[in-house]
């Protein structure tokens, strides 16, 4: 009797598990399992991208996610170097510089693929031609260390950072490495012109590469003010109990949407499609919001109560096409102004 009961429960469980999976999905999963692996070139912070890979691997046993994490511009560099040598190794490209995807699409290096559900995403998350979609978004914000700087004294606006009192006390990340900072620089150049960065550079900034690095630099007190940096990483660092306060400047906050696309020559195209479907599913998008402090384009996702809603903020956006066209100029001018 017991045995029959157990069987029944197992059967019911199997039906329940299987029910949302359509025949088409099942075929994709099977094909992906056969490939056994997906190679993900990503600029998402290492702990976050590793976590997502593990979620996927737990859900689809037998498919390994090989994570190659680097800054957006380095991801592009590696991808292009491999392509130039005729090496087909990367399945999925994901960076925070939307301009990268304009470039890759125009060079015919992307596979056209539309994951389910992205139709409902806002416009800024979608390539009109259908090659890439924003899997996550974050802001580039100011942050400071409240152990070193009182709330009253803290900089509140982008222009506050130009005050000489902050000389030697600030850290910036680099647009030649980070797509978030590339977007940040373009957004602020469009708002204030290059003069803003020329004046900022006079305050002798500490230069790091990744948009995630300022969080650690500010938290340790090495430089108490971050003049930019990814909001999700500041938020995560803060949540771990580190002394960090995030400022969302009233004049506007650069919004950075990070697209993902499948490589045209992907060696594991089915696993790549399955992984892409996975990260755009509501479940994963909600995980990105809950665990990683990210914003997403998914309309049904909810966010932690202690984070501002995107619609409450004045957002500064950068156009993907313009990002691509001005990439070289931004890297060059930034390097000239800051020295490296």
């Amino acid at each position: 009797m017991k045995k029959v009961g157990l069987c029944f429960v197992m059967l019911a469980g199997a039906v329940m598990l299987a029910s949302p999976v359509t025949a088409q999905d099942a075929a994709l999963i099977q094909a992906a399992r056969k490939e056994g692996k997906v190679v993900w070139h990503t600029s998402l912070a290492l702990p976050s991208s590793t976590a997502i890979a593990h979620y996927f691997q737990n859900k689809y046993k037998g498919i390994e996610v090989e994570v190659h994490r680097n800054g957006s511009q380095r991801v592009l560099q590696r991808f292009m170097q491999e392509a130039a040598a005729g090496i087909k190794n990367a399945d999925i490209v994901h960076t925070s510089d939307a301009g990268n995807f304009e470039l890759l699409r125009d060079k015919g290096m992307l596979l056209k693929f539309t994951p389910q559900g992205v139709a409902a995403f806002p416009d800024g998350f979608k390539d009109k031609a259908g090659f890439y979609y924003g899997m996550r978004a974050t802001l580039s914000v100011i942050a400071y260390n409240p152990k070193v700087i009182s709330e009253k004294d803290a900089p509140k606006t982008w222009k506050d950072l130009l005050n000489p009192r902050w000389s030697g006390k600030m850290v910036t990340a680099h647009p030649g490495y980070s797509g978030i900072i590339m977007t940040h620089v373009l957004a602020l150049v469009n708002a204030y012109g290059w003069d803003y960065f020329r004046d900022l550079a006079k305050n002798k900034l500490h230069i790091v590469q990744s948009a995630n690095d300022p969080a650690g630099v500010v938290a340790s007190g090495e430089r108490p003010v971050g003049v930019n940096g990814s909001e999700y990483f500041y938020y995560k660092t803060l949540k771990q109990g580190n002394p960090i306060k995030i400022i969302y400047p009233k004049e506007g906050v650069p919004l950075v949407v990070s697209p993902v696309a499948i490589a045209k020559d992907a060696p594991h195209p089915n696993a790549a499609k399955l992984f892409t479907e996975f990260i755009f599913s509501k479940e994963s998008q909600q995980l990105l919001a809950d665990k990683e402090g990210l914003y997403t384009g998914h309309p049904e996702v909810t966010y932690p109560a202690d984070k501002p809603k995107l619609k409450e903020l004045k957002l500064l956006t950068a156009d993907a096409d313009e990002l691509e066209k001005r990439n070289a100029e931004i890297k060059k001018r930034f390097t000239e102004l800051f020295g490296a």
Partner: protein
Amino acid sequence: MPASQTGTFRRVGYTGWSAFRFKDPTFPVWIGAAILLVFLMLLPLGAIFRASLWDDTGLTLNRYFEVFTNEQFLKAIWNTLIISTWVGVLAVMIGALLAFLVTRTDLPWKKPIRALVMASFVTPPFLGAFAWTLLAGPNAGALNKLYRAVTGSEEALFNIFTMPGLIFVMALYSFPFVFSMIANVCELISSDLEDAAEILGANKWRTAWTVTLPLAMPALIGGFILAFLQSLSLFGAPAILGLPAGLHTITTQIWALFQYPPRLDLAAAFSVPLLLATMALIAVQKKILGRKGYSTVGGKGGQKRLIHLGLGRVPVLLFVFGILSLSVFLPYWILLKAALSKAWAMPLTWDNFTLHNFSFAFFEYGDTQRAIYNTFKLGIVTATLGTLLATLIAYVTHRNLFRGARYLTFFALAPLVIPGIVLAVGLFIVYTRPPLVLYGTIWILFVAFLTKEMPIGFSQAESTFKSIHPELEDASRIIGANRLISLKDITAPLARSGLIAAWSFIFIGVIRELSAAILLFAPSSKVVSVVIFDLKEEGQVGVIAVLGTLMLAVSFLVILGVQWFAGRDVVATRE
């Protein structure tokens, strides 16, 4: 019956090319090794010159023009010259002083001191630089915090993210090269001349100044050039300490030129002056060291006596350990602390203690295992094949097996003048396009490391062969063994510990290499040093500390293991 009287058993090395070619069945091995060596050296250099001089339209000097009129590039060259000069001076001061104290005075604890100098040598400079960002960052650095707490000052004692900071760290990891050169010389200078000076009334310090120092002068200059060259070719330390302050050097600038869209042509053109500079310096060094033959430096010549430090022993010992704590104790301590902390800048209390960095590095982060596997595979394969090739070449040159064999020495030592990043530019150009695409595999790294480590392997093998008389081998050949079998059964076993030393030097050189690997790795062929650099760019302090600690632990285990295996102080032979 002397061997030379019968045709078959002639020592072919002395009777010429044709006899050897036709009569020795092992000929293809020797000539093959020689060709491989020449090929290894010429291919990347040829590629660099070609890429810097030719474009679609033909021969052009535009790239050189572009490089030498660009203010940023010129600034990088200038920075590099200043940094390297100071590193050379500082490294000579530290290295020579320590070498003198260890070899010529009655300073106690010489063995531990030598071991610590060895530890500084084994520590990859990029790891030392990283550790120093945690020690002497102006605000959060542990030493600066201590200084503020003790003095109540608002200011930092030392800002490591400056040119002096960079020079300081690079000198800390360059002085062991000088130390070994000077220590060798100091051990060979006999005390006869010093005795003469003392008999004429000079006190011991005056003797040291007027007699010992001039005798050691060529070695000091040689040491300076070695340290200068070493710092010229470093990539990791300037990238970690210089870039945050807006400071480019030649190597970081070459690396930046690989960003998309890559400017390989400019990187090649920019490599050429670096190459010419190192060549010129080596030539100068040869001239200086070659001209002043040490007539007084005779192998086992006169006696040497130790200078008595007297009451100064303890302060001098403390001073020596002070210096070594800068290159070894403090950096190792902060790495270990960062590996075990949640927040590295906070005190390591129970609340701040974590093993998460270790579990993340080993079990969650996929790159770690791949990179460790790649690193060890490369270390073992390069060390083994490198020692083999170096042994064959050294044998060829030492026994002068065929006409022109001695020119192979030049090729085997040539990589000394090729900075790792320049070699990488050349290899990248050659091996990212057909006919031979090695990029994307670890074998492009293997070629780079094999080339780069050849001088160490070769000089080790050569000096070992010099100490073995050929007569035993001749005996074996008379009773019918061919050259390869004689080498394998007779000479190689005699040379065993020397060759094991060569193996371990190459192995350590490979696992700590960054400057060539940083341009040649592809995502699937990462090595530990590259992973550490990637993590540094993202600011993952805890994970870097874990991997860095692991890397150091492995290096020391290999040295100890090899010493145990060889049954003697292998590594000390270099000092």
